């Protein structure tokens, strides 16, 4: 296509906005293919892209007349290509463009979406560039903003120099107006062109249009164009220019954006933001967030603070449980149940079962049987309560609190009760039967080892808890705290609790009220000092255990002696039996009276031995002393070696 002779460098006004583009264009025209290849010029319409491009063509041609310069718009190129395809002259088309030394391609933004033309363009581009031919392109936007443009074309278009042409500044506009006036041979009174240049036209084409109108007004002679009426004559054109471009551009959007921010800030629910932030955080760590998610569905604002702290507490608990569980079974690491704060209960149960299974709490001692427990009026209430507990554990008296002086048989009764419970269930029941001293020692050890969770779990899974000498816990804050939780946990699930103490709950000193009230909530029974009939039965039992068939007088005598506890009765029997053995006489009421009330018949030396064995009540306590050492012969040989 012929180059329009009007568009040359000579009449292209250079200002700050287009200086770079113009010098690049000149360099290209002076040495096509050497400087910037391709040269990609972009700007809004009407700012002189086409002018600049054609000026390159003219100058190049002027410097090298033999140069083959081709100018086309993309639309024309597409049309040409289509015609070539239709007429089967595609080869001629290719050859023609392959022979071009300087290709000027206008409005390449219209390549958008034209796949066929783009691939043809790509081929052409490669051919020309390989042979060092110059390409100049213009567009209304930079290459990467052209919609649906093949990436390979984008990189090729951007491979040389991409330069933009901005809107002319005031001085440039004045210069443009003056040049145009000269071209047109028009003359205006001083200041008119300057006033006109002050109007912010969006582009040079509009500026030129406005100048044409002024020239027309002036030529028609109807109106004299003056500095004062120049804006008026240009009418809303001028108003529009003032309002729509320049400084206002972007500001309108910025102010819209800032207003919008205010509205959003006003109407956004900050609590939702907080909940979602927490959700995102915990979700990333693998925790289920359904609990939080549900609150988002509501329209009411919940107590977010409480909600989040509840959620986080649950997670802390889960973490502790997970650690506990993996300590026993590493394959449980990251198990699902430890990732859902709504399944804490489930996780607790799992861990408790594992631990309960791993280390069962101490059970009742088997030597204390219910059959050997003698019942009399002084303890029958407690025994009766124990028996009904065996019949229906957890149902009737829960907790059962037995109190009485030491040696009155509390420990026996409690252990017997535990054994009965185990026997009754056929061994299915886990019964913890423990002295409070051991309970406290275990707790201290667990605190020390950091295995408190495991310790707790052991007690929380039992089917019945029997705790002897519970008054030992009094004054021990942590023990009471833990006992309180164990108690609640068991009680809530209907499991039997039996406690024994020297004193009734209300007289146990330094026992926390919350425990006291709970202990009193079931049945509190006292085992009193053994009455005559009980003493009689106890005496008979102890004597027969010593291998003595007692006569009535001996029985009556020993039973008639006052005793505070069963243990005292046992000690008395033990003493008279031992003495009789040492002296070597059969035991009868007369000997017993003599032994117990003075006037001894035995030799002094033997007395001393007997006293040594008998006087210390510790050795008389069958509960506290181990009399039968298993495997003694084996151990003796071991020591001997």
């Amino acid at each position, binding site marked *: 296509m012929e180059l329009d002779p009007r568009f040359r460098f000579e009449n292209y006004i250079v200002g700050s906005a287009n200086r770079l583009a113009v010098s690049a264009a000149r360099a290209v025209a002076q040495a096509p293919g050497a400087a910037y290849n391709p040269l990609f010029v972009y700007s809004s319409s009407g700012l002189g892209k086409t002018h600049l491009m054609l000026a390159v063509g003219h100058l190049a041609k002027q410097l090298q007349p033999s140069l083959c310069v081709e100018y086309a718009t993309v639309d024309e190129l597409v049309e040409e290509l289509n015609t070539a395809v239709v007429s089967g002259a595609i080869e001629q088309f290719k050859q023609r463009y392959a022979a071009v030394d300087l290709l000027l391609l206008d409005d390449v933004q219209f390549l958008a979406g034209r796949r066929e033309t783009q691939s043809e363009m790509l081929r052409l581009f490669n051919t020309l560039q390989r042979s060092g031919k110059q390409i100049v392109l213009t567009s209304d936007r930079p290459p990467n903003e052209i*919609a649906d443009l093949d990436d390979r074309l984008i990189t090729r278009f951007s491979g040389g120099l991409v330069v933009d042409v901005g809107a002319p500044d005031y001085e440039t506009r004045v210069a443009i107006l003056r040049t145009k006036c000269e071209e047109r041979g028009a003359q205006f009174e001083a200041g008119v062109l300057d006033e006109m240049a002050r109007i912010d036209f969006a582009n040079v084409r509009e500026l030129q249009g406005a100048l044409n109108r002024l020239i027309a007004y002036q030529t028609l002679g109807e109106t004299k164009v003056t500095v004062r009426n120049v804006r008026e004559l240009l009418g809303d054109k001028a108003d529009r220019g003032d309002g729509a471009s320049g400084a206002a551009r972007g500001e309108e959007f910025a102010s*819209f*954006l800032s207003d919008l921010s205010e509205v959003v*800030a006003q*109407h*956004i629910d900050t609590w939702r933001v907080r909940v979602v932030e927490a959700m995102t955080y915990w979700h990333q760590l693998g925790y289920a967030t359904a609990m939080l998610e549900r609150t988002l569905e509501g329209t009411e604002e919940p107590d977010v603070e409480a909600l989040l702290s509840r959620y986080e507490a649950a997670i802390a608990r889960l973490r502790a449980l997970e650690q506990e569980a993996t300590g026993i079974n590493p394959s449980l690491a990251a198990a699902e149940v430890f990732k859902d704060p709504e399944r804490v209960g489930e996780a607790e149960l799992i861990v408790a079962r594992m631990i309960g299974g791993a280390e069962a709490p101490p059970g009742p001692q088997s030597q204390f049987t219910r059959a050997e427990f003698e019942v009399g009026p002084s303890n029958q209430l407690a025994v009766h309560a124990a028996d009904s507990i065996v019949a229906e554990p957890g149902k009737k008296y829960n907790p059962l609190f037995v109190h009485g002086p030491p040696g009155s048989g509390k420990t026996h009764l409690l252990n017997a009760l535990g054994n009965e419970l185990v026997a009754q269930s056929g061994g299915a029941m886990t019964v913890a039967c423990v002295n409070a001293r051991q309970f406290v020692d275990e707790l201290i050890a667990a605190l020390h080892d950091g295995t408190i969770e495991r310790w707790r779990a052991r007690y929380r899974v039992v089917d019945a808890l029997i705790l002897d000498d519970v008054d030992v816990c009094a004054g021990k804050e942590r023990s009471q705290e833990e006992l309180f939780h164990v108690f609640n946990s068991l009680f809530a699930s209907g499991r039997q609790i039996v406690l024994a103490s020297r004193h009734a709950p209300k007289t146990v000193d330094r026992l926390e009220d919350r425990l006291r009230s709970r202990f009193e909530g079931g049945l509190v029974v006292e085992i009193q000092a053994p009455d005559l009939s009980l003493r009689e039965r106890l005496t008979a039992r102890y004597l027969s255990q010593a291998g003595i068939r007692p006569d009535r007088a001996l029985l009556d005598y020993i039973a008639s002696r006052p005793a505070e506890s069963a243990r005292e009765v046992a000690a008395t029997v033990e003493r008279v039996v031992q003495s009789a053995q040492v002296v070597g006489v059969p035991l009868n009421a007369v000997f017993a009276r003599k032994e117990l009330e003075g006037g001894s018949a035995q030799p002094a030396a033997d007395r001393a031995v007997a006293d040594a064995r008998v006087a210390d009540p510790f050795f008389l306590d069958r509960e506290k002393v181990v009399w039968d050492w298993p495997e003694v012969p084996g151990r003796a040989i071991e020591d001997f070696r």
Partner: protein
Amino acid sequence: MSLVNYTTREITCKIVYYGPGRSGKTTNLHYIYEQVPGDRKGRMVSLATQTDRTLFFDFLPLDLGSISGFSTRFQLYTVPGQVYYQTTRKLVLHGADGVVFVADSQSRQLDENVESMQDLHANLADHGIDVREMPLVIQYNKQDLPRDLILAKPDLDDALNFRNVPAFGADALHGVGVFETLRGISELVLRRLSTPTGVGSR
């Protein structure tokens, strides 16, 4: 489509420019497009006929960046005003969070305006949306035309604005009132943020 998504921290707002043919809906979008800095706007998709009439719809995505920590995106749509593109109009309205009704202020276009407004109501009703629930503003465009050709705002209000929604005079070609209108509808739409889902969720 949810207007505000607290989980992904996004606000997505679909605004439809509705009105009779040649009332200036596309012009509104063009003006906005010109004003928005390059990095904030997506490609404006305009499916226009030879004579620059909207054939299907115009679509201008605006990325408003992070507002109060929410990545905010506006999607501006126009519908083709011509009577025979009824199906397209209904389709574009789907999921809209707000509607700008662009009326032509010329007195001779009054009937078209009224007809289009009725059409809007009918289409919203077809989507099962109560018109009173849908954020709506009206723009009286072409107020720059000579006084004898156009109706004044009170007259237009009488004819079109029976719900007394915010109404703006405008000269969309030159940008007057364009952002005021957009601001107006945005405020109405964003006021609904406190409800978890917009009308468009249907």
